[in-house]
């Protein structure tokens, strides 16, 4: 079985369809296509052995293929509020940097995430964060406040958490109990755009921390694989449910590590998705839970593991 690796292709609009066809022919999947003026960015999964071939074909088109560890993941960037104290810098810069590594990021601005005594997390926020593969908490400056309010902000969160804040990594590890999956110190309330080398180094550290955490999850998934590879199910849905092509969202179907988010209303479309045939006699309903998402009225598909379904598509 060929191993698919996440890569980003950056090149011009000119003849980029050839690259898309090539990835398709090689058995890869394009998770996200982004056209910005003359440039195209393709977030995709391609067979490991064929990366050099894509590089060679992309050479005359001045296209670049780089490994992007976060392709096919959806990450929540959690900001204590949407006030000017936390936005646009820090939270948006973090989200932007994670996107460059291939992730699909969503900003979750808490309604009451500020103040060490009054901070809290409501059920909607909790459920939305739990719909992601990982949550990055962009916290503030003081150890005292983080220690006091973080247990409240993480209540009920089951996905891995990475914390960023001003105190250094060791201090964060000391004050956060029980431990979270990752820590990045030195990113707290910052009121300017991240542009200095040391600030960008911190963002690189964050990407490393996120990909380390997600790699651990991928290893666990490899031991009990999913019934279908999410980008494959995504390709099937995009091909068979034509309404998806009419959506104006940048990612009408968002790939996650263990499922998909389909940005169609739940009530009218869930039965159609459930009965969609993935392979001979196997429908989406057999291998996945199709549930309503807490994010608007979208559909959330959670793919079941092989151990549960005994089906591998």
């Amino acid at each position: 079985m060929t191993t698919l690796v996440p890569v980003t292709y950056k090149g011009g609009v000119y003849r980029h369809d050839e690259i898309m066809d090539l990835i398709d022919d090689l058995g890869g999947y394009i998770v996200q296509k982004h056209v910005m003026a003359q440039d195209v960015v393709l977030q995709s999964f391609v067979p490991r052995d064929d990366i050099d071939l894509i590089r060679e074909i992309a050479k005359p088109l001045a296209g670049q293929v780089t490994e992007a560890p976060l392709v096919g993941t959806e990450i929540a960037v959690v900001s204590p509020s949407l006030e000017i104290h936390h936005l646009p810098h820090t939270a948006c810069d973090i989200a932007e940097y994670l996107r460059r590594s291939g992730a699909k990021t969503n900003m979750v601005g808490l309604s009451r995430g500020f103040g060490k005594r009054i901070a809290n997390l409501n059920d909607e926020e909790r459920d939305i964060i739990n719909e992601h593969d990982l949550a990055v908490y962009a916290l503030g400056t003081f150890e005292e406040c983080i220690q006091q309010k973080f247990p409240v902000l993480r209540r009920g969160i089951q996905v891995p958490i990475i914390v960023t804040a001003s105190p250094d990594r060791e201090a964060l590890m000391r004050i956060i109990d029980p431990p979270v999956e990752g820590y990045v110190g030195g990113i707290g309330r910052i009121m300017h755009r991240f542009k200095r080398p040391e600030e960008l180094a911190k963002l690189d550290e964050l990407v490393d921390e996120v990909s380390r955490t997600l790699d651990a999850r991928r290893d666990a998934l490899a031991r009990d694989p999913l019934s279908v590879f999410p980008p494959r199910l995504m390709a099937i849905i995009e091909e068979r449910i034509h309404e998806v092509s009419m959506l104006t969202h940048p990612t009408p179907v968002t790939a996650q590590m263990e499922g998909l988010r389909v940005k169609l209303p739940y009530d009218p479309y869930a039965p159609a998705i459930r009965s969609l045939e993935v392979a001979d006699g196997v429908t989406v309903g057999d291998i996945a839970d199709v549930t309503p998402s807490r994010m608007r009225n979208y559909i959330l598909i959670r793919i079941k593991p092989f151990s549960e379904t005994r089906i591998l598509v």
Partner: protein
Amino acid sequence: MPPLNYFVVESPDAVGREAYERIAGDVLQDLDLIKVIDRLHICVDPKVPIFVAAGLLRHMPRAIRVSDFANVNPGEKETVLDIADETYLAPLLQKLWARFGKENVDQPDRFTVVLPKGVVGDEELEGLVVADPSETLYKDVIYALQYIAPEGFKVRRQYIKDGKFYYVASEDTLPADIVERVVAPIFERMGVSL
């Protein structure tokens, strides 16, 4: 780092002190207040919790009068205002409409306003106060301090008068004597009394 004559940030948390120095610098720079603020002292203690900012303004901008941005040309039947800078045109028109009525204020083109002779004296018109930038400056300074202060510190007491300002904020109720106890000593350290 802003070129203020006095800029001190105090906090028991060393990381926090450094961060707030940077935050204050960035905010003042962003809001273009560095030239306006002369001295600034900030104390933050998340344990209490309290945030205090106190300081002095450099100089207050004076009120803007008609003669600052327009030429008043008296004619036989009418007075013609020749607008040199449009910045204050909108508040000027508002004032003129309110005082002389819309039927008496004619604006044949963007840079000309015509008033009939006799409704107002030329000198009085030249001296008419159109806007007071210090009014918005007060708001800007308070906004900047609100922006610098930790977000959770919602209970606040603010003051800006005669070139002095302070901003005290906390998450909990502020004690009644907080100004005398905490703010006054800070002003003393800056060499002035509140």
